[in-house]
C-alpha cells in the first residue's frame, strides 16, 4: 500500500523505520521543508544545538554510547560546513553518524546560489559514503543505504545532501517491510554475506605463535568495543594468561582491576607498558590500527615481536606496521575462534618481568588538587556507574591513565582526530543515549571554551550533563610541548577564562569552583546528585605535566620522565 508524501515526510518515515528516535540539528533555509514536516512525527525527538559542529559531536557521542546510528541535521552552506569537524572526528574513530544536509534547489546547484556549498566535495575524504539525492524517487532507498553503510563493517559517518525542492517533491511512498530496515545491525559486525572466506589458517598460525611465545601481549582497541567482543577478549586473556594493553580508544574494553590489565601504550603510556611492548616476542592486536601515537617510531616499535593483527578493515592490516599474521574479521567472531584454538597456558615469569619494569610515577603537578584526586573523587561519588567523556589534551591523558574503568564502553573521547571542543557536545549525545546514569564531560579550560555555548542546549532540553573543567590557565598540552621541545617559550598558550561560576549562574545552572582538596568530595557529591546540568571548575597547578612522554617520532624505549632543566625565558 502506498501513500503520497513529500520528500521531507518520506525522510522522517525512513528515519523512524530505521529506529531513529533522536536528531541533533539546527534549522535553516534549505532544510526548512524537513523542519516543517518534523512536528508530524513526535517519535523523532529534536535537540536544538547552538552550533552545527556540536550537533555532529552529539550524534557521534550518541552513536558511540548506544551503538545505533547518530543523526545530525543542518542546512546548506554554513550549516553544512560547520558539520565538517564533527564528521572528520567520527570518521577517524569509526563512529556511525548520519548527517543530513539541506541543499539549494536543483535548478540553482552550481550557480553559487545563496548558502550553496559543495558539501559532497567537502566531505568526500571524511565520510564512508555521501550522496546528493537527485530525485525524490531515490530518497527512501538512499536513506536506507546510507544507514546500512554507516553501521555495517567498520562503522563510519555518511552524509546525505537533499536539495530543498526534493524535500518538497511528492511521491507515492511505499513503507519498507518490517524487519527490512538497517537500524538494528550491531556496529562492528560484518553485514550478512560479507564475512571473508578462510579464517582458519590465520587462527591456527596465531594459536601456534601464542603457544610458542615467552613474552606475549594482547593489545586491544576500539574494535573490541564496536564489535562487543569484551567476553571473548577476556576469555582469551584468562585462558592464556597474556597481559592486556588497551589503546586510548580501547580503554574500558577490559576491566582495569583485572590482574592481567596492564594499561595504555604509546606516547603517554606508562613506562612498564611500553617496555613490555619493546620486550614482547608476540603481540596479538585486536581491533586497532597501530597509529603513530601508539607505535612512536615505527622502525623501533616492538623490535622482537611477531605481530598478529585481527581487524575488520583489511586495508588496516600492514598499513602502519609489518605483521606476521593478518586476520580479516570481526573482533568477536575471530577472538571466539582463537579462544577455542589456543591451549591453556600461563605467562607468570613474563608478568613478573613486566612488574620489574614498573617505576614510581613521575611527579606531574604541584599543589594539593591533583588530577588523580579529582578523578578518584568522581569515581568514588558515582560508584563507577558513570560515563566519562573527555576532550583533548592533558586532562584527556590524565583520565586515560588514572580513571579506573571497569565497565565496557564508559570512556568516550576523540582519539584519532584529537578534536578539542568534543567533550561537552558529545556528552549531550551520550546522556541522551544513557539517561539513567551520570555522564561527566571533562575538559580543559581551552576545549571547554570552544563549545561552552552548548550549556544552553542542556538547559533548553533538560539534559543533566555534569561538566568538569580542569583549569590551569594554559592550553596545557601545547604548553607542555613548548616546555619540552621549544625552549619553554610559552607562545600564545596562556588562556584567560571567564568566571565559570558566574557563567553557570548566567545560564541558570549549578556551578562550583574547587581550589583545594578539602572542598573536593563535597562539591563532586553535590554536582553529581544535582538534577539538571552542573558545572565544576577545578583550579589545578599551572605547569602540571603528563608523564611519561615519548617525544614525537621517538622510540617507545626512550620516555621522558621529568621536565627539562629550566631554560632562560625568552
Amino acid at each position: 500500500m502506498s501513500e503520497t508524501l513529500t520528500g521531507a515526510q518520506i525522510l522522517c518515515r525512513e528515519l523512524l523505520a530505521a529506529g531513529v528516535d533522536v536528531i541533533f540539528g539546527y534549522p535553516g533555509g534549505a532544510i526548512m521543508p524537513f523542519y516543517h514536516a518534523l512536528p508530524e512525527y513526535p517519535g523523532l525527538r529534536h535537540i536544538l544545538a547552538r552550533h552545527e559542529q556540536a550537533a555532529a559531536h552529539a550524534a557521534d557521542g550518541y552513536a558511540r554510547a548506544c551503538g545505533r546510528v547518530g543523526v545530525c541535521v543542518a542546512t546548506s552552506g554554513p550549516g553544512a560546513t560547520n558539520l565538517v569537524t564533527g564528521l572528520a572526528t567520527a570518521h577517524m574513530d569509526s563512529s556511525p553518524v548520519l548527517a543530513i544536509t539541506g541543499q539549494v534547489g536543483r535548478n540553482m546547484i552550481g550557480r553559487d546560489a545563496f548558502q550553496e556549498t559543495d558539501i559532497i566535495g567537502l566531505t568526500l575524504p571524511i565520510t564512508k559514503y555521501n550522496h546528493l539525492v537527485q530525485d525524490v524517487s531515490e530518497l527512501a532507498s538512499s536513506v536506507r543505504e546510507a544507514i546500512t553503510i554507516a553501521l555495517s563493517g567498520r562503522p563510519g559517518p555518511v552524509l546525505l545532501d537533499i536539495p530543498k525542492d526534493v524535500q518538497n517533491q511528492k511521491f507515492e511512498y511505499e513503507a519498507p517491510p518490517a524487519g527490512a530496515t538497517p537500524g538494528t545491525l550491531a556496529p562492528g559486525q560484518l553485514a550478512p554475506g560479507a564475512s571473508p572466506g578462510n579464517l582458519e589458517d590465520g587462527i591456527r598460525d596465531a594459536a601456534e605463535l601464542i603457544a610458542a611465545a615467552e613474552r606475549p601481549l594482547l593489545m586491544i582497541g576500539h574494535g573490541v568495543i564496536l564489535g562487543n567482543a569484551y567476553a571473548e577478549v577476556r576469555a582469551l586473556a584468562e585462558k592464556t594468561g597474556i597481559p592486556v594493553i588497551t589503546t586510548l580508544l580501547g580503554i574500558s574494553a577490559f576491566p582495569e582491576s583485572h590482574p592481567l590489565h596492564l594499561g595504555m601504550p604509546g606516547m603517554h603510556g606508562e613506562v612498564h607498558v611500553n617496555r613490555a611492548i619493546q620486550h614482547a616476542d608476540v603481540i596479538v592486536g585486536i581491533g586497532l590500527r597501530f597509529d603513530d601515537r601508539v607505535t612512536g617510531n615505527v622502525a623501533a616499535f616492538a623490535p622482537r615481536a611477531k605481530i598478529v593483527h585481527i581487524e575488520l578493515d583489511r586495508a588496516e592490516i600492514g598499513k602502519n606496521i609489518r605483521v606476521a599474521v593478518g586476520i580479516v574479521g570481526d573482533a568477536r567472531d575471530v577472538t571466539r575462534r582463537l579462544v577455542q584454538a589456543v591451549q591453556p597456558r600461563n605467562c607468570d615469569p613474563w608478568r613478573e618481568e613486566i612488574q620489574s619494569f614498573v617505576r614510581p610515577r613521575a611527579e606531574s603537578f604541584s599543589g594539593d588538587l591533583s588530577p588523580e584526586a579529582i578523578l578518584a573523587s568522581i569515581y568514588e561519588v558515582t560508584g563507577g556507574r558513570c560515563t566519562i567523556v573527555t576532550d583533548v589534551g592533558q586532562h584527556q591523558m590524565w583520565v586515560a591513565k588514572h580513571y579506573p574503568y571497569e565497565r565496557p564502553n564508559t570512556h568516550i573521547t576523540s582519539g584519532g582526530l584529537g578534536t578539542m571542543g568534543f567533550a561537552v557536545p558529545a556528552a549531550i549525545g551520550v546522556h541522551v543515549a544513557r539517561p539513567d546514569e551520570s555522564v561527566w564531560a571533562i575538559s580543559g579550560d581551552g576545549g571547554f571554551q570552544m563549545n561552552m555555548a552548548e550549556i544552553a542546549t542542556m538547559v533548553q532540553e533538560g539534559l543533566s550533563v555534569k561538566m568538569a573543567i580542569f583549569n590551569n590557565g594554559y592550553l596545557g598540552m601545547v604548553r607542555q610541548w613548548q616546555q619540552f621541545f621549544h625552549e619553554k617559550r610559552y607562545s600564545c598558550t596562556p588562556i584567560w577564562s571567564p568566571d565559570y561560576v558566574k557563567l553557570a549562574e548566567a545560564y541558570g545552572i549549578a556551578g562550583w569552583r574547587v581550589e583545594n582538596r578539602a572542598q573536593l568530595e563535597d562539591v563532586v557529591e553535590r554536582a553529581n546528585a544535582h538534577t539538571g546540568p552542573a558545572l565544576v571548575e577545578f583550579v589545578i597547578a599551572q605547569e602540571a605535566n603528563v608523564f611519561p612522554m615519548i617525544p614525537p617520532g621517538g622510540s617507545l624505549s626512550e620516555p621522558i620522565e621529568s621536565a627539562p632543566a629550566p631554560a632562560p625565558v625568552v
Partner: protein
Amino acid sequence: MALSHAISVLLDDDLLTFNRVIGVVRRRNVPIANLTMGASQVPGVSRLSFMMQADEANADRLVRQLQKSFGVRHAAMFPAEDAVTREIALIKVRPAATNRAELAAVVLQFEAAVVEESPGAWIIAMTGVAARIESCIRALERFGILEIARSGAVAMRSGAASSPSPAPHNPSEAVL
C-alpha cells in the same frame, strides 16, 4: 619516472565515484601517470587504469584503500612488465609543400595514419606503447608540430588471467 605497477579499477560509471577514487590516490600522495578511464566489459561499470611508481607493499596498500571506496567494484595491481598497454596520440603538424612525401614516409614507418588533411595542417594518429609514440613524435618534430593530444595508456594484465565482471551498483539491492 620509472613506473613499476599498473593499477586497474572497475568502478561505477559516475563522476562521484571517480572523484572518490582519485581522492584516495591523491591522499596517499603517490606518483602516478597515464591515467585513463573508459568503458569496461560491463555496461554501467568503467575501467580506470593508471601506472604508479611504488614498491609492492605500497602499491598493495593503495589497492586495499581503493577496494573499500564506495562504488569500486574491483581493484587490482600488477607489475608493469606484466601489463599490456596501448596509447593513442593525435599529432597535428604543418608540413611545407616541399616535404609532404617525406612526412608520408615517416607516417608509414611508424604504422601511423593520416586521419585528416586540411590545407594548413595534417592530423596524424598513432597507436602503440608510450616509447614508440614518443619516437614518432620526435620524428615528426621537424615538420612543425602544432598540437599533441595523447590518451594515456589503457592497461590490461597479459595472459589469460582477467578481472571479474561485477554488476554496477544498485541501491535497492544493497539494502539489508
